[in-house]
């Protein structure tokens, strides 16, 4: 337990250190955006001094870390808002999108992988395999564009972008939730279509190897029904590695949702991060990196714990 907490903290420190280093060592000056004709050279020097941008890198990092320990993530260069507030405002949208898409991915991938793995080289299996090969080859953002083209521009079923219609602010809460859900469908579909194929293929492969094993043969010999064998005996073991794969694919999922949030103007952390990248808004960027890494590392730990829970043979 203590060991895993320690490794959590070391990873977090290393990730923030690396991102801090990359951001600051790269050319480019965040104070450029404050430049106006009225200012002289000494004003720019003063601004750089106020932000502490002339200190040596390690000093800057330690200062940032000290503030973080006290719950202060700094202030955005471009809006002056506290970074923590800016991120907390964005967190619900990100969590809604990532949690719903993760659940949909599991709910779709498990049965499809199980059935196509149980009946390999049948028409159903071919269709599923072919479709997942194709969706794996599509750029995630292009899936989003195609869905917009089809469902928003052609059939006008769902809005092209946004989160909650500003006109809805006076409406009762359930109407607002309904509106969010309506906006959610296309970004959700994009993430799911982009992310589900890998898991289906993985699950299918697992089921095929498991069904070839002796204990399944033994279960058949005992006269158990095929459905019972699949669900109770094969699926249980096939689900073990899924937990690990899900934990490992979290960074990709979050990375992928960056672009999807950007396309659908979904007001999550990804959109905030991308805007901050373009504006060289270091405090916001570091805040986003910190919070995303915490989310990812927690996800990994949860996956580890879940793995131990589904497979008691593994001792910590």
């Amino acid at each position: 337990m203590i060991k895993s907490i320690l490794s959590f903290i070391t990873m977090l420190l290393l990730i923030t250190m690396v991102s801090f280093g990359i951001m600051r060592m790269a050319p480019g000056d965040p104070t450029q955006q404050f430049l106006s004709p009225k200012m002289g050279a000494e004003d720019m020097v003063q601004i750089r001094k106020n932000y502490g941008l002339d200190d040596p890198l390690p000093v800057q990092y330690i200062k940032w870390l000290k503030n973080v320990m006290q719950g202060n993530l700094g202030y955005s260069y471009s809006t002056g808002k506290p970074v923590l507030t800016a991120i907390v405002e964005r967190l619900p949208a990100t969590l809604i999108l990532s949690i719903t898409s993760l659940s949909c991915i599991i709910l779709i991938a498990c049965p499809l992988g199980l059935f196509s793995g149980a009946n390999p080289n049948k028409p159903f299996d071919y269709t599923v395999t072919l479709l997942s090969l194709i969706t794996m080859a599509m750029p995630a953002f292009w899936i989003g564009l195609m869905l917009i083209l089809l469902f928003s521009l052609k059939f006008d079923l769902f809005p092209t972008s946004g989160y909650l219609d500003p006109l809805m602010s006076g409406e009762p809460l359930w109407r607002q939730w309904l509106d969010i859900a309506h906006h959610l469908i296309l970004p959700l579909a994009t993430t799911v279509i982009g992310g589900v194929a890998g898991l289906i293929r993985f699950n299918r492969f697992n089921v095929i190897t498991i069904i070839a094993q002796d204990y399944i043969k033994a279960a058949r010999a005992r006269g158990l029904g095929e459905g019972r064998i699949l669900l109770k005996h094969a699926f249980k073991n096939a689900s073990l590695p899924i937990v690990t794969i899900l934990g490992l694919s979290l960074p990709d999922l979050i990375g992928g949702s960056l672009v999807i949030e950007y396309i659908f103007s979904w007001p999550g952390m990804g959109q905030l991060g991308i805007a901050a990248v373009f504006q060289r808004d270091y405090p916001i960027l570091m805040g986003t990196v910190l919070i995303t890494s915490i989310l990812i590392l927690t996800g990994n730990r949860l996956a580890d714990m879940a793995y131990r829970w589904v497979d008691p043979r593994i001792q910590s």
Partner: protein
Amino acid sequence: MTMSLTKIAYIFLAGMIIIPIIVSVLNLTNPTSFSPLFTGDPICPCSEHWLGTDDLGRDLLARCIDGAKISLAVGAISVSISVGIGLILGLISGFYGGIIDSLIMRFVDLFLAIPTLFLILIIQVMLTPSIFNVMAVIGLTSWMGVTRLVRAEVLTAKQRPFITAAKARGISNTTILFKHILPHTLNPVIVAAVLGMGSAILIESTLSFLGLGVQPPNASWGNMLQGSLAYMTDAPWMTIIPGILITMTVLSLNIIGDHLRNAIFKNS
């Protein structure tokens, strides 16, 4: 069915490599010239422009062919970089073991925990976006898988009797590593490289779509999509066609990768 699919994949990929070369050697089309028919709106696919034109009146087919060169080159070169790094780190890590091994593996874990796309975005904004930076950045951020793969291969190869024999004959570590172990790791690395090229092309298209990759007037399939966003209703072909090309290319690479893996698996 699978056999014919694999054949199609090889043929398609060969076409994607050969056609742009023929077209540019014979100077058949010009991806940056403007159509004389252009009046301000993108032209629909017609007999003069088989795939229509973009918003500036440039022939879309010519740009797709030109984009193929760049997208495939970015994929190939960035994969060479990542495979090179992964091979060296994996060989060292697996062969020497101990502290070096755990240091390199922690480094791999670290890079795996950061969302790659986010890292690439940060680096790309800081550098001036150009084709070469795109290749370097994708290569430098996607070596982790190959490192793990090579390390695992080295660990199993190290246990084999012929390595013990080589050691007993007093052959130096470097010779054993490069002459006897390295060839054993190459098969899975080739598979990983083919599959990695597909994902490099996907990353390139995402970066170029965000305006952080290949810069105009150069055409890549990704930056053609960037230009298409404003014309989705009036000129959907601008969005649909480059995306289909990306999908088909990555699909072919994935199918070929799977095919190679199965071939190797059957042999051993």
